[in-house]
């Protein structure tokens, strides 16, 4: 059991890191030959950083677009961020101060995350436009995330797991040791689902996370009159 889970975790983490690095490299090396920021756009690099930060932290464009989607989407992502922060205590010894500090919030965040996901999922059934564009994988992705959240919450509130043992198992993985893991089906399910998530990440719409930073509509500086912007393949046309 421990060996299977360990193998799965190693493999999926490797796919996750390598796959994501490959995609980011691909984005970084594909040229953007034309200046196409959606204007009004910042006229400086600093301004662009602020624009991106507002998108990442506040989901500003989504807020302007649809309040419901924003509410559910933001709640889910904010919840997820806190929950991930909370999970750092299984990785660090001694636990970092700020990780200890967010522990109590992380618990509520788990519920917020699940509620946001439920709201997002409901929209896929209730709004005819969104029903039209939803694919089976959209539903599966939500199911996967919700199942991860539910199994995690269940371990906290329904059938407590021996988290000291869990932590020792995980820290063992860092030093290439497969230690004992509690024989808890909820825990096995939770970890297996997280592996599935890491496996699909570099090949799915989850690429929206790195994608935002490479979106020319959002990351370009509005200065085409002041600076000549020329991609390599476009510059070659001039020497012909």
């Amino acid at each position, binding site marked *: 059991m421990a060996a299977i889970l360990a193998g799965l975790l190693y493999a999926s983490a490797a796919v996750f890191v390598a796959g994501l690095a490959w*995609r980011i490299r691909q*984005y970084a090396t*594909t*040229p*953007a*030959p*034309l*200046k*196409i920021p*959606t*204007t*009004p*756009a*910042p*006229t400086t690099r600093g301004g662009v950083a602020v624009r991106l930060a507002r*998108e990442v932290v506040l989901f500003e*464009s*989504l807020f*302007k*677009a*649809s309040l419901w*989607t924003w509410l559910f*989407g933001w709640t889910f992502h904010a919840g997820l961020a806190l929950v991930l922060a909370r999970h750092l205590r299984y990785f660090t010894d001694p636990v970092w101060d700020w990780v200890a500090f967010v522990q109590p919030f992380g618990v509520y965040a788990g519920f917020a995350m699940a509620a946001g996901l439920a709201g*997002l999922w409901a929209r896929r059934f209730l*709004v*005819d*436009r*969104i029903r*039209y*564009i939803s*694919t*089976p*994988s*959209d539903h*599966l992705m939500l199911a996967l995330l919700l199942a991860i959240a539910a199994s995690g919450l269940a371990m906290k509130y329904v059938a407590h797991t021996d988290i000291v043992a869990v932590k020792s198992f995980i820290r063992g993985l860092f030093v290439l040791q497969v230690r004992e893991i509690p024989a808890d089906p909820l825990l096995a399910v939770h970890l297996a689902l997280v592996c599935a998530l890491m496996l*699909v990440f570099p*090949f*799915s*719409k989850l*690429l*929206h996370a790195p*994608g*935002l930073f*490479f*979106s*020319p*509509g*959002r990351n370009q500086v*509005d200065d085409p*009159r*002041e*600076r*000549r*912007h*020329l991609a390599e*393949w*476009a*510059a070659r*046309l*001039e020497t012909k």
Partner: protein
Amino acid sequence: MAEITAPALREFPVAPAVSPDAMAASKPYVATDKMQEALGFPGALPEDWHDRAIAKLGEMVGKYRGLRVYLDACVHCGACTDKCHYFLGTGDPKNMPVARQELLRGVYRRHYTLPGKLFPKLVGARELTKDMLDDWYKYYHQCSECRRCSVFCPYGIDTAEVTMAAREILDSVGYGQKYSNEIIGKVHRIGNNLGLPGPALEDTLLGLEEDVKEDTGADVKFPLDQKGAEVLLITPSADFFAEPHVDSLIGYAKVFHAAGISWTLSSKASEAANFGLFIGNYDQMRAIALRIREQALELGVKRIVVGECGHAWRVAYSFWNTLAGIGSGGEDPFARQLQSQLDHRYRQPTHICELTWDLVQKGALVLDKEANDHRVVTFHDSCNVARASRMGDEPGGQFEIPRALIRAVANRYVEMRPGTTHEATFCCGGGGGLLTDEILDLRVKGALPRMESLREVADRHGVNFMATICAICKAQFTKVLPYYGFNRSMVGGVHQLVSTAIRLGAKQ
């Protein structure tokens, strides 16, 4: 042609119910083999069109980062679904921006992503069948490349970029659109979209000089091909004779006259429009822009000014420096050749509204606002100006400068409903290469959101003039306003208002 119907105007616009295939019959004429071949595209669908199209798609995602990111990043959140005027006006779900992208994305997934190769059904991957290719042709010609959807997408996914890529692929397999490709051919052969040859242009300009002389008594000139002029004016060819466009051209001429700026038009570059943008073809866009560079060099001008045209301003502002070295800051020999000739105390290129507004601020013009008192004016932001360019030094100058100019020449000005102006402005319904009559039904329906907000200010505030700075907006509104019960002459240019207010000869 299908029956042309305008949807009813509603007081509280909401997204329509999804009505599949409502616009499946809307399709512009296909380019003839001659038009295609003149641009270096195949004349008709070749045997191996499927493989060629897939290969072209692969080439495009390798050349355009935007396209690659946009095809990967969409989460189907639906935020854009109710933002497109063509969806709002037709209810056809394939006119929801995300569904429009999905036509291309499905094929991209099938051929260029792992899950799409392994589990096509699961992730919505699609084969490129002939039916799918026809859907591309239809629905990528129901997008005016207005970018309204990109404002609201959490990742800035710009459907206009996807549409341009799809049209480029269609062209590359011999399935181009007649309207755009025929016009691009004319620009190369004759110098402008309307196919107006040099001598005819000269006649038209002389006629205008006489008209203005009769009206104002002033000797306002409309110079053509004048070497050594300070300003080269590049303006849409519709300005030379179409109504109401020509009134703005008269306005620019009066401004140059009153400010004592020497200027010229060029018979070889008598067109600001650049339809290379609409078909997403870098080479065409570049070739069209290079005409202007060559003329600027030949005439030896110090400044390049662009007239009232939305997409032309986008190309001029955002792309000219890249495509043809028209701008500032270039360090390579190609760019320096032109840029060392230009006067960089001025913005290069300059929008005519920037130029006039600068003069107004300096007090260089005598303006009689009362002359416009018979008008209650509102301003329609044109998409390409609003969401793909700038004026002045501050972000948002593209909204403030035309408005400031209108307020300087007219007393009665009213804004349309928030959410339908500035960066959230609605397209006129005829942009992006769709200004052709066989798809008039689509154009009328796509104008619905703009017509609703215009109706509101017309009823509440008596608005009787909608000013705009785009040749396509002017032509489109002139055509569709009557379908909504408006007078077609209520649309006009900002410089038409300037022309009415400006007093010549009073201050010299």
